């Protein structure tokens, strides 16, 4: 369902939007397993499948926030298990620095999640989504960008 501006402002109805970038080989398969095992998890998460967590450019994360995500998750294979041997190690370095940069600029680092979920961890996936959705709900709508846009519109 497309959220309108109205129900975004109405906290009773408001559902967080979480964009998740999952690597094809572990986390996506993990999420798939959760589905196949009929484990339910909130529909707040919008999954985008990528070959590897190493493919995640910080630009993807920024763009998600720009387009209205309240939280972004990047998930890949556990260290040592990356299908391309080291994509997740590179991602770990880069994304940690990225989170620090965003936090320095005033974006709540809790809005940017990073996890390792293997193809066998369907249960972990469903629990994780449950947990971060609860956290996202607590944090409320991500307003930095819309707010900034509003300031400009009113000028």
């Amino acid at each position, binding site marked *: 369902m497309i959220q309108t501006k109205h129900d975004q402002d109405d906290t009773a109805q408001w559902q967080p939007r979480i964009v998740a970038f999952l690597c094809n080989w572990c986390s996506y398969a993990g999420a798939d397993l959760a589905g196949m095992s009929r484990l339910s998890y909130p529909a707040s998460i919008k999954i985008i499948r990528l070959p590897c967590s190493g493919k995640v450019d*910080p*630009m993807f994360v*920024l*763009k998600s926030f*720009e387009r209205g995500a309240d939280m972004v998750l990047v998930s890949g294979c556990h*260290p*040592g298990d990356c299908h391309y041997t*080291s994509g997740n*190690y*590179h991602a*770990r*370095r*880069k994304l*940690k*620095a*990225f*989170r*620090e*940069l*965003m*936090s*320095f*600029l*005033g*974006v*709540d*680092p809790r809005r940017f*999640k*990073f*996890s*390792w979920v293997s193809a066998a961890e369907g249960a972990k996936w469903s629990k*994780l989504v449950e947990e*971060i959705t609860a956290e996202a709900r607590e944090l409320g709508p991500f307003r*930095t*960008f819309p*707010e*900034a*846009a509003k*300031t*400009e519109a009113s000028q």
Partner: protein
Amino acid sequence: MSPEASTAQSLAQTAAEMLSQGQVALVIGYAPTEGKRLSPPVFVTTPEEAQRLGFDSRCFGNLSVYLWSPQVRQMGKTAVVVKGCDVRAVNVLLRENVIKREDIVLIGVRCGGVGDLPAHKCTVCDCRDPQGCDVVVGDAVDQPDGAAEGRYSAAEALEEKSLDERREFWQRQLDKCIRCYACRQVCPLCYCKRCIVEKSTPQWVETSAHPRGNLSWNVVRAFHLAGRCVGCGECERVCPMNIPLGAINQKMAKLMEDEYDFRSGMSPEEKAPFTTFSTDDTDEGIL
């Protein structure tokens, strides 16, 4: 003779010799000019013109930015006048294989700091005596002690604030950005032929001077320079809107030093943190 005049003389002499002996086709240096706030760059191709070269506390520019420009490269072997801090940018260009050492000649100049009130980078400078140059001119200068302290003071001052305060601060600052990209043009390390802000399929960064695109632009600029920026301060100096870009650069540089014991541009052989990884990197903050 004043120290400045004698430095100018050695610069002119060195450049004239290199040009007349055909060692280089071009010398890029500074031409201190009466009444100017800044000593502009000068491109010297004949021994006579070399007389214009000089060095003083108005030589802010980091001339290494010209080394990779196609116009300069097609002229042939180039000598460039560099301060100790500028050498760090040259080192990054070398380590990233943008230029080859044999294609350039480095004329180092000892520097006592630039600016009437010395620039922040000069108060924490630890490279007043340029390293790795082909020639070094100028009188010996004092190397300030305890330079490491305060290296990241601008970033630290902001880190102490709360998240909300920081957001408010940066929102105000970045709202000012007019997207002139002067910060990019002046950066010796922003050498991409096509910058991400110019890519339009898809449009990664909104191009109008709108708060949304402004944040993305400034995040991208900072992130693409993480582990590469040498803190020359040029971006902040040229920003017409006085956005404290140096604080963002410092934040990333501090991270690199704290996490990976790395300072960019200290040698042409170094390996930047983002070109490699360690299996021992922390899993902290990962679910």
